Protein backbone atom coordinates (compact mmCIF):
# COMPACT_ATOMS: atom_id res chain seq x y z
CA UNK A 1 0.00 0.00 0.00
CA UNK A 2 1.27 3.38 -0.93
CA UNK A 3 2.00 5.66 1.94
CA UNK A 4 0.50 8.97 0.84
CA UNK A 5 1.93 10.74 3.80
CA UNK A 6 5.11 11.14 1.84
CA UNK A 7 3.29 13.61 -0.42
CA UNK A 8 4.39 17.07 0.34
CA UNK A 9 1.89 19.70 1.30
CA UNK A 10 2.78 21.79 -1.68
CA UNK A 11 2.14 18.90 -4.03
CA UNK A 12 -1.15 18.21 -2.36
CA UNK A 13 -2.24 21.83 -2.50
CA UNK A 14 -1.13 22.22 -6.08
CA UNK A 15 -2.96 19.12 -7.19
CA UNK A 16 -6.06 20.00 -5.23
CA UNK A 17 -6.01 23.53 -6.63
CA UNK A 18 -5.75 22.25 -10.16
CA UNK A 19 -8.57 19.77 -9.67
CA UNK A 20 -10.78 22.33 -7.95
CA UNK A 21 -10.14 24.86 -10.67
CA UNK A 22 -10.83 22.25 -13.29
CA UNK A 23 -14.09 21.17 -11.73
CA UNK A 24 -15.22 24.74 -11.17
CA UNK A 25 -14.34 25.57 -14.75
CA UNK A 26 -16.18 22.49 -15.89
CA UNK A 27 -19.16 23.54 -13.88
CA UNK A 28 -19.10 26.76 -15.80
CA UNK A 29 -18.38 25.55 -19.31
CA UNK A 30 -20.20 22.24 -19.42
CA UNK A 31 -23.52 22.44 -21.15
CA UNK A 32 -26.72 22.49 -19.20
CA UNK A 33 -30.03 21.07 -20.11
CA UNK A 34 -32.16 23.59 -21.93
CA UNK A 35 -29.35 26.09 -22.42
CA UNK A 36 -27.52 26.83 -25.68
CA UNK A 37 -24.42 24.77 -26.29
CA UNK A 38 -21.36 25.84 -28.13
CA UNK A 39 -20.08 22.96 -30.17
CA UNK A 40 -16.39 23.66 -30.54
CA UNK A 41 -14.57 21.34 -32.95
CA UNK A 42 -10.91 20.92 -32.26
CA UNK A 43 -10.04 19.66 -35.77
CA UNK A 44 -11.22 20.47 -39.29
CA UNK A 45 -12.53 16.96 -39.70
CA UNK A 46 -14.49 17.40 -36.54
CA UNK A 47 -15.91 20.65 -37.95
CA UNK A 48 -17.01 18.87 -41.13
CA UNK A 49 -18.48 15.94 -39.23
CA UNK A 50 -20.20 18.27 -36.80
CA UNK A 51 -22.27 19.88 -39.50
CA UNK A 52 -23.48 16.53 -40.79
CA UNK A 53 -24.19 15.23 -37.36
CA UNK A 54 -26.12 18.24 -36.11
CA UNK A 55 -28.47 18.53 -38.99
CA UNK A 56 -30.32 15.36 -38.11
CA UNK A 57 -33.58 17.03 -37.23
CA UNK A 58 -33.17 16.49 -33.49
CA UNK A 59 -30.96 19.43 -32.74
CA UNK A 60 -31.79 23.00 -33.11
CA UNK A 61 -28.83 24.93 -34.51
CA UNK A 62 -28.91 28.46 -33.32
CA UNK A 63 -26.03 29.75 -35.31
CA UNK A 64 -22.33 29.86 -35.86
CA UNK A 65 -20.01 30.00 -32.92
CA UNK A 66 -17.31 32.55 -32.28
CA UNK A 67 -14.66 30.21 -33.54
CA UNK A 68 -14.49 29.04 -37.07
CA UNK A 69 -16.37 25.75 -37.50
CA UNK A 70 -18.10 26.06 -34.17
CA UNK A 71 -21.84 26.08 -33.84
CA UNK A 72 -24.30 27.10 -31.25
CA UNK A 73 -27.03 24.58 -30.76
CA UNK A 74 -29.92 23.91 -28.43
CA UNK A 75 -30.51 20.22 -27.75
CA UNK A 76 -34.12 19.12 -27.80
CA UNK A 77 -33.62 15.61 -26.58
CA UNK A 78 -30.89 13.69 -24.86
CA UNK A 79 -27.75 14.76 -26.58
CA UNK A 80 -25.04 12.18 -26.98
CA UNK A 81 -22.24 14.38 -25.78
CA UNK A 82 -19.79 11.53 -25.63
CA UNK A 83 -20.29 10.84 -29.25
CA UNK A 84 -19.50 14.45 -30.02
CA UNK A 85 -16.48 14.36 -27.82
CA UNK A 86 -15.40 11.24 -29.60
CA UNK A 87 -15.75 13.11 -32.86
CA UNK A 88 -13.41 15.79 -31.51
CA UNK A 89 -16.11 18.33 -30.74
CA UNK A 90 -16.30 19.87 -27.33
CA UNK A 91 -19.80 20.70 -26.20
CA UNK A 92 -19.58 23.82 -24.07
CA UNK A 93 -22.07 26.02 -22.44
CA UNK A 94 -22.61 28.97 -24.59
CA UNK A 95 -20.79 32.00 -23.08
CA UNK A 96 -23.23 34.73 -24.00
CA UNK A 97 -21.16 37.36 -22.24
CA UNK A 98 -18.34 36.60 -24.61
CA UNK A 99 -20.30 35.77 -27.71
CA UNK A 100 -23.44 37.75 -27.30
CA UNK A 101 -26.95 36.47 -27.42
CA UNK A 102 -27.31 33.43 -29.64
CA UNK A 103 -29.29 33.86 -32.72
CA UNK A 104 -32.34 31.66 -32.47
CA UNK A 105 -33.43 32.36 -36.00
Amino acid at each position, binding site marked *: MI*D*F*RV*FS*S*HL*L*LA*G*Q*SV*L*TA*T*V*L*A*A*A*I*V*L*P*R*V*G*DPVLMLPVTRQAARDLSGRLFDGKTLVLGAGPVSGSLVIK*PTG*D*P*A*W*RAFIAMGVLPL*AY*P*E*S*LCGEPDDG
Partner: protein
Amino acid sequence: MVDPHPTIELDRIRARGVLMLASCSWGWIILLGAIAATQHYADVWLAPALAAIVSLPTSIVVLSGRRDPAVRLALALSYAAYPAIAVLVLGGHAWQMDTHLYFLVALAAISLLYDVWAMRAAAGVMAIHHVLAWAIMPRLAFEGGTDLFRLMLHIGAVVVELMFLTMLVRRSKLMIGELAAARAASEAIAADAQANRTAAEAALDSAAKAEQRANGERSRREEAEEISRRREREQLIAIADAFEAGITNLAQSLGGAADALSRSAESLNGLAQETDIRADSVADVATQASDAARAVADHVAALSGVIADMDDRTGQQADHARHARIASATGQQTVLSLIDRATQVEQFARTIGDLSTSTNLIAINASIEAAQVGDAGKGFAIVAGEVKMLAQQARGESHKIEELVALIRAGAAEAEDALKEAGIVLDGASGTADDLRDAMRSQRADAEAARSRSTDLAATADALVEDTDALTGWAEATRRLSTEVRSAATSLSGDVSALLQSTRAFVAQLRAA
Protein backbone atom coordinates in the same frame (compact mmCIF):
# COMPACT_ATOMS: atom_id res chain seq x y z
CA MET B 1 -1.07 29.75 7.18
CA VAL B 2 0.33 28.21 10.30
CA ASP B 3 -1.85 28.63 13.30
CA PRO B 4 0.14 30.64 15.84
CA HIS B 5 -1.66 29.05 18.77
CA PRO B 6 -1.99 25.39 18.04
CA THR B 7 -3.14 23.26 20.83
CA ILE B 8 -3.65 19.62 21.22
CA GLU B 9 -7.37 20.11 21.67
CA LEU B 10 -7.60 22.28 18.58
CA ASP B 11 -5.61 19.80 16.58
CA ARG B 12 -7.86 17.09 17.82
CA ILE B 13 -10.99 19.06 16.85
CA ARG B 14 -9.52 19.91 13.52
CA ALA B 15 -8.61 16.28 12.96
CA ARG B 16 -12.16 15.27 13.73
CA GLY B 17 -13.39 17.99 11.35
CA VAL B 18 -11.07 16.74 8.63
CA LEU B 19 -12.32 13.22 9.09
CA MET B 20 -15.92 14.33 9.15
CA LEU B 21 -15.66 16.51 6.03
CA ALA B 22 -13.69 13.83 4.19
CA SER B 23 -16.41 11.36 5.01
CA CYS B 24 -19.11 13.79 3.98
CA SER B 25 -17.31 14.33 0.69
CA TRP B 26 -18.49 10.96 -0.40
CA GLY B 27 -21.91 11.88 0.82
CA TRP B 28 -21.75 14.81 -1.56
CA ILE B 29 -20.78 12.42 -4.32
CA ILE B 30 -23.73 10.16 -3.64
CA LEU B 31 -26.08 13.12 -3.31
CA LEU B 32 -24.91 14.62 -6.54
CA GLY B 33 -25.30 11.25 -8.26
CA ALA B 34 -28.82 11.00 -6.96
CA ILE B 35 -29.65 14.51 -8.10
CA ALA B 36 -28.21 13.81 -11.50
CA ALA B 37 -30.23 10.62 -11.73
CA THR B 38 -33.42 12.51 -11.11
CA GLN B 39 -32.65 15.18 -13.66
CA HIS B 40 -32.58 15.10 -17.37
CA TYR B 41 -28.89 15.65 -17.39
CA ALA B 42 -27.20 14.15 -20.33
CA ASP B 43 -24.56 12.27 -18.38
CA VAL B 44 -25.66 10.95 -15.02
CA TRP B 45 -22.12 10.01 -13.99
CA LEU B 46 -20.55 13.30 -14.80
CA ALA B 47 -21.41 15.14 -11.60
CA PRO B 48 -20.41 12.24 -9.27
CA ALA B 49 -17.28 11.83 -11.32
CA LEU B 50 -16.36 15.47 -10.92
CA ALA B 51 -17.08 15.30 -7.19
CA ALA B 52 -15.00 12.15 -6.89
CA ILE B 53 -12.12 13.72 -8.77
CA VAL B 54 -12.07 16.74 -6.52
CA SER B 55 -12.45 14.58 -3.42
CA LEU B 56 -9.92 11.94 -4.31
CA PRO B 57 -6.66 13.64 -3.19
CA THR B 58 -8.02 14.73 0.17
CA SER B 59 -9.67 11.37 0.74
CA ILE B 60 -6.42 9.59 0.04
CA VAL B 61 -4.32 11.70 2.37
CA VAL B 62 -7.00 11.62 5.05
CA LEU B 63 -7.15 7.85 4.79
CA SER B 64 -3.39 7.83 5.09
CA GLY B 65 -3.76 9.60 8.39
CA ARG B 66 -2.77 13.12 7.59
CA ARG B 67 -4.58 15.95 9.33
CA ASP B 68 -2.19 18.80 8.71
CA PRO B 69 -3.12 22.33 7.49
CA ALA B 70 -2.44 21.44 3.86
CA VAL B 71 -5.02 18.70 4.10
CA ARG B 72 -7.48 21.14 5.63
CA LEU B 73 -6.84 23.64 2.91
CA ALA B 74 -7.21 21.03 0.21
CA LEU B 75 -10.39 19.80 1.81
CA ALA B 76 -11.76 23.37 1.89
CA LEU B 77 -10.97 23.74 -1.80
CA SER B 78 -12.83 20.54 -2.59
CA TYR B 79 -15.84 21.73 -0.59
CA ALA B 80 -15.86 24.95 -2.55
CA ALA B 81 -16.40 22.89 -5.67
CA TYR B 82 -19.35 20.75 -4.55
CA PRO B 83 -22.04 23.48 -4.74
CA ALA B 84 -20.84 24.44 -8.17
CA ILE B 85 -21.27 20.82 -9.29
CA ALA B 86 -24.76 20.86 -7.81
CA VAL B 87 -25.59 24.01 -9.73
CA LEU B 88 -24.28 22.30 -12.81
CA VAL B 89 -26.42 19.23 -12.26
CA LEU B 90 -29.54 21.25 -11.60
CA GLY B 91 -29.06 23.32 -14.69
CA GLY B 92 -32.44 24.24 -16.16
CA HIS B 93 -34.21 23.22 -12.96
CA ALA B 94 -36.31 25.69 -11.06
CA TRP B 95 -34.24 25.05 -7.92
CA GLN B 96 -30.95 25.57 -9.65
CA MET B 97 -30.35 28.96 -8.10
CA ASP B 98 -31.47 27.72 -4.73
CA THR B 99 -28.53 25.43 -4.86
CA HIS B 100 -26.36 28.51 -4.34
CA LEU B 101 -27.33 28.30 -0.71
CA TYR B 102 -25.08 25.32 -0.45
CA PHE B 103 -22.09 27.55 -0.98
CA LEU B 104 -22.94 28.97 2.41
CA VAL B 105 -23.56 25.50 3.75
CA ALA B 106 -20.21 24.39 2.41
CA LEU B 107 -18.52 27.40 3.95
CA ALA B 108 -20.21 26.66 7.23
CA ALA B 109 -19.12 23.06 6.96
CA ILE B 110 -15.54 24.19 6.33
CA SER B 111 -15.69 26.10 9.56
CA LEU B 112 -15.62 22.69 11.29
CA LEU B 113 -11.95 22.64 10.34
CA TYR B 114 -11.37 25.65 12.64
CA ASP B 115 -8.97 26.93 10.04
CA VAL B 116 -9.50 30.54 9.01
CA TRP B 117 -7.13 30.20 6.15
CA ALA B 118 -9.05 27.26 4.79
CA MET B 119 -12.28 29.21 5.14
CA ARG B 120 -10.75 32.21 3.43
CA ALA B 121 -9.41 30.04 0.66
CA ALA B 122 -12.76 28.36 0.13
CA ALA B 123 -14.58 31.71 0.27
CA GLY B 124 -12.08 33.16 -2.17
CA VAL B 125 -12.54 30.26 -4.55
CA MET B 126 -16.31 30.61 -4.29
CA ALA B 127 -16.07 34.32 -4.94
CA ILE B 128 -13.78 33.82 -7.88
CA HIS B 129 -16.07 31.13 -9.18
CA HIS B 130 -19.02 33.50 -8.96
CA VAL B 131 -17.13 36.31 -10.58
CA LEU B 132 -16.01 34.08 -13.42
CA ALA B 133 -19.48 32.63 -13.82
CA TRP B 134 -20.91 36.12 -13.71
CA ALA B 135 -18.38 37.29 -16.24
CA ILE B 136 -18.59 34.31 -18.56
CA MET B 137 -22.04 32.91 -18.03
CA PRO B 138 -24.19 35.66 -16.54
CA ARG B 139 -27.41 33.77 -17.01
CA LEU B 140 -25.86 30.72 -15.59
CA ALA B 141 -24.81 32.49 -12.43
CA PHE B 142 -27.79 34.70 -12.01
CA GLU B 143 -31.06 33.86 -13.56
CA GLY B 144 -32.47 36.78 -15.33
CA GLY B 145 -29.27 38.23 -16.62
CA THR B 146 -26.24 40.18 -15.63
CA ASP B 147 -26.54 42.12 -12.40
CA LEU B 148 -23.46 43.38 -10.61
CA PHE B 149 -25.43 44.19 -7.52
CA ARG B 150 -26.74 40.67 -7.31
CA LEU B 151 -23.20 39.47 -7.69
CA MET B 152 -22.08 41.77 -4.91
CA LEU B 153 -25.02 40.64 -2.86
CA HIS B 154 -23.95 37.04 -3.19
CA ILE B 155 -20.32 37.84 -2.58
CA GLY B 156 -21.32 40.02 0.35
CA ALA B 157 -23.27 37.14 1.80
CA VAL B 158 -20.25 34.92 1.47
CA VAL B 159 -17.97 37.57 2.93
CA VAL B 160 -20.30 38.30 5.80
CA GLU B 161 -20.69 34.65 6.54
CA LEU B 162 -16.96 34.34 6.31
CA MET B 163 -16.56 37.15 8.80
CA PHE B 164 -18.98 35.69 11.24
CA LEU B 165 -17.59 32.24 10.81
CA THR B 166 -14.11 33.64 11.22
CA MET B 167 -15.15 35.38 14.40
CA LEU B 168 -16.85 32.24 15.53
CA VAL B 169 -13.81 30.14 14.73
CA ARG B 170 -11.45 32.57 16.41
CA ARG B 171 -13.60 32.77 19.48
CA SER B 172 -13.92 29.04 19.41
CA LYS B 173 -10.18 28.74 19.09
CA LEU B 174 -9.75 31.12 21.97
CA MET B 175 -12.23 29.15 23.96
CA ILE B 176 -10.53 25.98 22.93
CA GLY B 177 -7.21 27.53 23.92
CA GLU B 178 -8.67 28.58 27.23
CA LEU B 179 -10.23 25.20 27.58
CA ALA B 180 -6.91 23.68 26.66
CA ALA B 181 -5.18 25.88 29.18
CA ALA B 182 -7.84 25.05 31.68
CA ARG B 183 -7.55 21.46 30.72
CA ALA B 184 -3.77 21.68 30.93
CA ALA B 185 -4.16 23.38 34.26
CA SER B 186 -6.71 20.82 35.27
CA GLU B 187 -4.44 18.12 33.92
CA ALA B 188 -1.59 19.66 35.84
CA ILE B 189 -3.86 19.79 38.82
CA ALA B 190 -4.99 16.30 37.95
CA ALA B 191 -1.36 15.29 37.54
CA ASP B 192 -0.60 16.91 40.84
CA ALA B 193 -3.70 15.29 42.21
CA GLN B 194 -2.62 12.05 40.61
CA ALA B 195 0.85 12.56 42.00
CA ASN B 196 -0.70 13.48 45.30
CA ARG B 197 -3.03 10.56 44.91
CA THR B 198 -0.09 8.35 44.07
CA ALA B 199 1.79 9.82 46.98
CA ALA B 200 -1.33 9.48 49.08
CA GLU B 201 -1.82 5.96 47.85
CA ALA B 202 1.84 5.30 48.50
CA ALA B 203 1.40 6.92 51.87
CA LEU B 204 -1.78 4.94 52.39
CA ASP B 205 0.01 1.87 51.18
CA SER B 206 2.88 2.68 53.48
CA ALA B 207 0.38 3.47 56.19
CA ALA B 208 -1.46 0.25 55.43
CA LYS B 209 1.82 -1.65 55.47
CA ALA B 210 2.84 0.21 58.58
CA GLU B 211 -0.56 -0.50 60.04
CA GLN B 212 -0.22 -4.08 58.93
CA ARG B 213 3.22 -4.21 60.47
CA ALA B 214 1.84 -2.40 63.48
CA ASN B 215 -1.02 -4.89 63.60
CA GLY B 216 1.44 -7.70 63.25
CA GLU B 217 3.67 -6.11 65.82
CA ARG B 218 0.64 -5.43 67.99
CA SER B 219 -0.48 -9.02 67.51
CA ARG B 220 3.00 -10.27 68.33
CA ARG B 221 3.19 -7.85 71.26
CA GLU B 222 -0.27 -8.86 72.41
CA GLU B 223 0.68 -12.48 71.95
CA ALA B 224 3.92 -11.88 73.84
CA GLU B 225 2.00 -9.94 76.45
CA GLU B 226 -0.55 -12.74 76.58
CA ILE B 227 2.25 -15.27 76.95
CA SER B 228 3.93 -13.00 79.50
CA ARG B 229 0.61 -12.51 81.28
CA ARG B 230 0.00 -16.25 81.12
CA ARG B 231 3.49 -16.93 82.41
CA GLU B 232 3.12 -14.22 85.01
CA ARG B 233 -0.25 -15.64 85.93
CA GLU B 234 1.23 -19.13 86.03
CA GLN B 235 4.11 -17.80 88.07
CA LEU B 236 1.63 -15.84 90.16
CA ILE B 237 -0.49 -18.94 90.60
CA ALA B 238 2.66 -20.92 91.38
CA ILE B 239 3.68 -18.20 93.80
CA ALA B 240 0.12 -18.17 95.13
CA ASP B 241 0.24 -21.96 95.46
CA ALA B 242 3.63 -21.73 97.09
CA PHE B 243 2.36 -18.83 99.17
CA GLU B 244 -0.74 -20.76 100.07
CA ALA B 245 1.33 -23.84 100.80
CA GLY B 246 3.80 -21.74 102.75
CA ILE B 247 1.04 -19.96 104.57
CA THR B 248 -0.72 -23.27 105.15
CA ASN B 249 2.48 -24.80 106.40
CA LEU B 250 3.16 -21.66 108.39
CA ALA B 251 -0.38 -21.70 109.67
CA GLN B 252 -0.10 -25.34 110.47
CA SER B 253 3.28 -24.72 112.03
CA LEU B 254 1.95 -21.71 113.86
CA GLY B 255 -1.14 -23.65 114.81
CA GLY B 256 1.02 -26.49 115.98
CA ALA B 257 3.35 -24.03 117.62
CA ALA B 258 0.37 -22.27 119.16
CA ASP B 259 -1.02 -25.57 120.33
CA ALA B 260 2.41 -26.58 121.53
CA LEU B 261 2.81 -23.16 123.07
CA SER B 262 -0.57 -23.49 124.67
CA ARG B 263 0.29 -26.93 125.85
CA SER B 264 3.70 -25.67 126.93
CA ALA B 265 2.00 -22.81 128.66
CA GLU B 266 -0.32 -25.22 130.32
CA SER B 267 2.63 -27.46 131.14
CA LEU B 268 4.57 -24.42 132.25
CA ASN B 269 1.65 -23.37 134.32
CA GLY B 270 1.46 -26.82 135.76
CA LEU B 271 5.20 -26.80 136.22
CA ALA B 272 4.97 -23.41 137.81
CA GLN B 273 2.33 -24.64 140.14
CA GLU B 274 4.31 -27.78 140.77
CA THR B 275 7.45 -25.69 141.09
CA ASP B 276 5.63 -23.57 143.60
CA ILE B 277 4.63 -26.68 145.42
CA ARG B 278 8.05 -28.19 145.00
CA ALA B 279 9.63 -24.96 146.01
CA ASP B 280 7.59 -25.07 149.15
CA SER B 281 8.61 -28.65 149.58
CA VAL B 282 12.18 -27.79 148.76
CA ALA B 283 12.01 -24.96 151.20
CA ASP B 284 10.75 -27.36 153.79
CA VAL B 285 13.30 -29.91 152.75
CA ALA B 286 15.99 -27.29 152.71
CA THR B 287 14.93 -26.25 156.17
CA GLN B 288 14.97 -29.84 157.21
CA ALA B 289 18.27 -30.31 155.36
CA SER B 290 19.65 -27.35 157.20
CA ASP B 291 18.53 -28.83 160.42
CA ALA B 292 19.78 -32.23 159.34
CA ALA B 293 23.04 -30.75 158.24
CA ARG B 294 23.47 -29.18 161.58
CA ALA B 295 22.52 -32.50 163.14
CA VAL B 296 24.92 -34.26 160.86
CA ALA B 297 27.58 -31.83 161.87
CA ASP B 298 26.89 -32.65 165.43
CA HIS B 299 26.82 -36.35 164.64
CA VAL B 300 29.95 -36.06 162.62
CA ALA B 301 31.59 -34.39 165.56
CA ALA B 302 30.47 -37.28 167.70
CA LEU B 303 31.58 -39.69 165.02
CA SER B 304 34.95 -38.05 165.05
CA GLY B 305 35.25 -38.93 168.70
CA VAL B 306 34.15 -42.46 168.01
CA ILE B 307 36.58 -42.71 165.18
CA ALA B 308 39.34 -41.49 167.45
CA ASP B 309 38.42 -44.16 169.94
CA MET B 310 38.25 -46.73 167.19
CA ASP B 311 41.61 -45.56 166.05
CA ASP B 312 43.03 -46.33 169.44
CA ARG B 313 41.32 -49.66 169.51
CA THR B 314 42.49 -50.49 166.09
CA GLY B 315 46.04 -49.85 167.23
CA GLN B 316 45.56 -52.25 170.01
CA GLN B 317 44.05 -54.79 167.69
CA ALA B 318 47.07 -54.51 165.49
CA ASP B 319 49.33 -55.24 168.41
CA HIS B 320 47.20 -58.25 169.28
CA ALA B 321 47.37 -59.47 165.73
CA ARG B 322 51.14 -59.33 165.79
CA HIS B 323 51.22 -61.27 169.03
CA ALA B 324 48.89 -63.85 167.55
CA ARG B 325 51.09 -64.14 164.54
CA ILE B 326 54.05 -64.91 166.67
CA ALA B 327 52.04 -67.50 168.58
CA SER B 328 50.87 -69.01 165.39
CA ALA B 329 54.47 -69.42 164.24
CA THR B 330 55.35 -71.11 167.43
CA GLY B 331 52.42 -73.49 167.12
CA GLN B 332 53.49 -74.24 163.63
CA GLN B 333 56.91 -75.32 164.84
CA THR B 334 55.29 -77.47 167.38
CA VAL B 335 53.13 -79.12 164.82
CA LEU B 336 56.18 -79.81 162.72
CA SER B 337 57.79 -81.52 165.68
CA LEU B 338 54.63 -83.50 166.16
CA ILE B 339 54.76 -84.62 162.59
CA ASP B 340 58.35 -85.79 163.07
CA ARG B 341 57.33 -87.78 166.08
CA ALA B 342 54.42 -89.26 164.27
CA THR B 343 56.78 -90.33 161.51
CA GLN B 344 58.94 -92.06 164.03
CA VAL B 345 55.89 -93.81 165.49
CA GLU B 346 54.85 -94.90 162.11
CA GLN B 347 58.24 -96.39 161.52
CA PHE B 348 57.84 -98.32 164.78
CA ALA B 349 54.45 -99.45 163.71
CA ARG B 350 55.74 -100.62 160.40
CA THR B 351 58.52 -102.53 162.14
CA ILE B 352 55.94 -104.15 164.36
CA GLY B 353 53.89 -104.95 161.35
CA ASP B 354 56.89 -106.59 159.70
CA LEU B 355 57.53 -108.59 162.75
CA SER B 356 53.91 -109.64 162.95
CA THR B 357 54.03 -110.68 159.35
CA SER B 358 57.10 -112.73 159.96
CA THR B 359 55.54 -114.17 163.02
CA ASN B 360 52.42 -115.02 161.08
CA LEU B 361 54.56 -116.79 158.48
CA ILE B 362 56.31 -118.64 161.11
CA ALA B 363 53.04 -119.57 162.74
CA ILE B 364 51.77 -120.76 159.43
CA ASN B 365 54.88 -122.80 158.89
CA ALA B 366 54.60 -124.13 162.34
CA SER B 367 50.98 -125.08 161.75
CA ILE B 368 51.99 -126.77 158.56
CA GLU B 369 54.70 -128.64 160.33
CA ALA B 370 52.42 -129.43 163.17
CA ALA B 371 49.94 -130.79 160.72
CA GLN B 372 52.60 -132.94 159.17
CA VAL B 373 53.50 -134.37 162.46
CA GLY B 374 50.06 -135.37 163.18
CA ASP B 375 48.74 -135.74 166.58
CA ALA B 376 52.04 -134.97 167.98
CA GLY B 377 51.99 -131.74 166.63
CA LYS B 378 48.51 -130.86 167.65
CA GLY B 379 49.69 -129.00 170.65
CA PHE B 380 52.17 -127.29 168.74
CA ALA B 381 49.67 -126.50 166.17
CA ILE B 382 47.58 -124.92 168.86
CA VAL B 383 50.51 -122.85 170.01
CA ALA B 384 51.30 -121.99 166.47
CA GLY B 385 47.73 -120.99 166.07
CA GLU B 386 47.94 -118.79 169.07
CA VAL B 387 51.12 -117.27 167.83
CA LYS B 388 49.49 -116.74 164.50
CA MET B 389 46.60 -115.06 166.17
CA LEU B 390 48.91 -112.84 168.18
CA ALA B 391 50.85 -112.02 165.10
CA GLN B 392 47.66 -111.09 163.39
CA GLN B 393 46.64 -108.99 166.38
CA ALA B 394 49.99 -107.30 166.40
CA ARG B 395 49.63 -106.64 162.79
CA GLY B 396 46.24 -105.27 163.36
CA GLU B 397 47.47 -103.03 166.05
CA SER B 398 50.31 -101.87 163.95
CA HIS B 399 47.86 -101.00 161.31
CA LYS B 400 45.84 -99.08 163.80
CA ILE B 401 48.96 -97.30 164.89
CA GLU B 402 49.74 -96.48 161.33
CA GLU B 403 46.22 -95.28 160.89
CA LEU B 404 46.51 -93.16 164.02
CA VAL B 405 49.83 -91.87 162.88
CA ALA B 406 48.34 -91.15 159.61
CA LEU B 407 45.48 -89.35 161.35
CA ILE B 408 47.96 -87.47 163.48
CA ARG B 409 49.99 -86.58 160.50
CA ALA B 410 46.92 -85.47 158.71
CA GLY B 411 45.78 -83.51 161.71
CA ALA B 412 49.22 -82.08 162.05
CA ALA B 413 49.24 -81.22 158.45
CA GLU B 414 45.82 -79.59 158.81
CA ALA B 415 47.03 -77.86 161.91
CA GLU B 416 50.07 -76.72 160.04
CA ASP B 417 47.94 -75.54 157.24
CA ALA B 418 45.59 -73.89 159.68
CA LEU B 419 48.46 -72.29 161.40
CA LYS B 420 49.87 -71.19 158.14
CA GLU B 421 46.52 -69.76 157.21
CA ALA B 422 46.16 -68.28 160.63
CA GLY B 423 49.55 -66.76 160.20
CA ILE B 424 48.55 -65.44 156.88
CA VAL B 425 45.27 -64.21 158.34
CA LEU B 426 47.03 -62.71 161.19
CA ASP B 427 49.45 -61.08 158.88
CA GLY B 428 46.47 -59.78 156.95
CA ALA B 429 44.72 -58.86 160.12
CA SER B 430 47.75 -57.05 161.23
CA GLY B 431 47.94 -55.24 157.93
CA THR B 432 44.22 -54.69 158.02
CA ALA B 433 44.49 -53.33 161.45
CA ASP B 434 47.17 -51.02 160.31
CA ASP B 435 45.06 -50.07 157.35
CA LEU B 436 42.05 -49.72 159.53
CA ARG B 437 44.00 -47.52 161.79
CA ASP B 438 45.08 -45.44 158.88
CA ALA B 439 41.50 -45.48 157.65
CA MET B 440 40.28 -44.45 161.02
CA ARG B 441 42.71 -41.64 160.99
CA SER B 442 41.56 -40.73 157.54
CA GLN B 443 37.96 -41.12 158.62
CA ARG B 444 38.72 -38.93 161.46
CA ALA B 445 40.02 -36.25 159.13
CA ASP B 446 37.07 -36.88 156.84
CA ALA B 447 34.71 -36.59 159.71
CA GLU B 448 36.22 -33.28 160.55
CA ALA B 449 35.83 -32.24 156.98
CA ALA B 450 32.29 -33.63 156.92
CA ARG B 451 31.50 -31.70 159.98
CA SER B 452 32.78 -28.60 158.35
CA ARG B 453 30.87 -29.43 155.20
CA SER B 454 27.75 -30.13 157.16
CA THR B 455 28.06 -26.74 158.67
CA ASP B 456 28.51 -25.29 155.20
CA LEU B 457 25.61 -27.44 154.01
CA ALA B 458 23.45 -26.00 156.68
CA ALA B 459 24.39 -22.54 155.58
CA THR B 460 23.74 -23.58 151.99
CA ALA B 461 20.40 -25.02 152.98
CA ASP B 462 19.54 -21.73 154.57
CA ALA B 463 20.48 -19.98 151.37
CA LEU B 464 18.47 -22.57 149.47
CA VAL B 465 15.47 -21.72 151.55
CA GLU B 466 15.90 -18.12 150.62
CA ASP B 467 16.37 -19.09 146.94
CA THR B 468 13.33 -21.29 147.15
CA ASP B 469 11.29 -18.34 148.29
CA ALA B 470 12.53 -16.45 145.27
CA LEU B 471 11.77 -19.47 143.15
CA THR B 472 8.25 -19.44 144.49
CA GLY B 473 7.90 -15.86 143.34
CA TRP B 474 9.32 -16.80 139.99
CA ALA B 475 6.96 -19.75 139.72
CA GLU B 476 4.05 -17.39 140.34
CA ALA B 477 5.33 -15.04 137.70
CA THR B 478 5.84 -17.99 135.36
CA ARG B 479 2.29 -19.13 135.98
CA ARG B 480 0.93 -15.71 135.15
CA LEU B 481 3.17 -15.54 132.14
CA SER B 482 2.12 -18.99 130.98
CA THR B 483 -1.51 -17.91 131.30
CA GLU B 484 -0.77 -14.91 129.13
CA VAL B 485 1.15 -17.12 126.68
CA ARG B 486 -1.75 -19.54 126.45
CA SER B 487 -4.12 -16.66 125.77
CA ALA B 488 -1.72 -15.37 123.16
CA ALA B 489 -1.44 -18.86 121.66
CA THR B 490 -5.22 -19.06 121.45
CA SER B 491 -5.35 -15.65 119.79
CA LEU B 492 -2.53 -16.74 117.51
CA SER B 493 -4.52 -19.82 116.50
CA GLY B 494 -7.46 -17.60 115.63
CA ASP B 495 -5.22 -15.24 113.71
CA VAL B 496 -3.65 -18.17 111.90
CA SER B 497 -7.09 -19.47 110.91
CA ALA B 498 -8.08 -16.03 109.69
CA LEU B 499 -4.80 -15.72 107.83
CA LEU B 500 -5.34 -19.11 106.23
CA GLN B 501 -8.88 -18.19 105.16
CA SER B 502 -7.72 -14.85 103.80
CA THR B 503 -4.87 -16.55 101.97
CA ARG B 504 -7.19 -19.10 100.42
CA ALA B 505 -9.65 -16.40 99.40
CA PHE B 506 -6.79 -14.35 97.95
CA VAL B 507 -5.39 -17.32 96.06
CA ALA B 508 -8.88 -18.23 94.81
CA GLN B 509 -9.38 -14.68 93.50
CA LEU B 510 -5.90 -14.81 92.00
CA ARG B 511 -6.65 -18.04 90.20
CA ALA B 512 -10.01 -16.78 89.03
CA ALA B 513 -8.42 -13.57 87.66
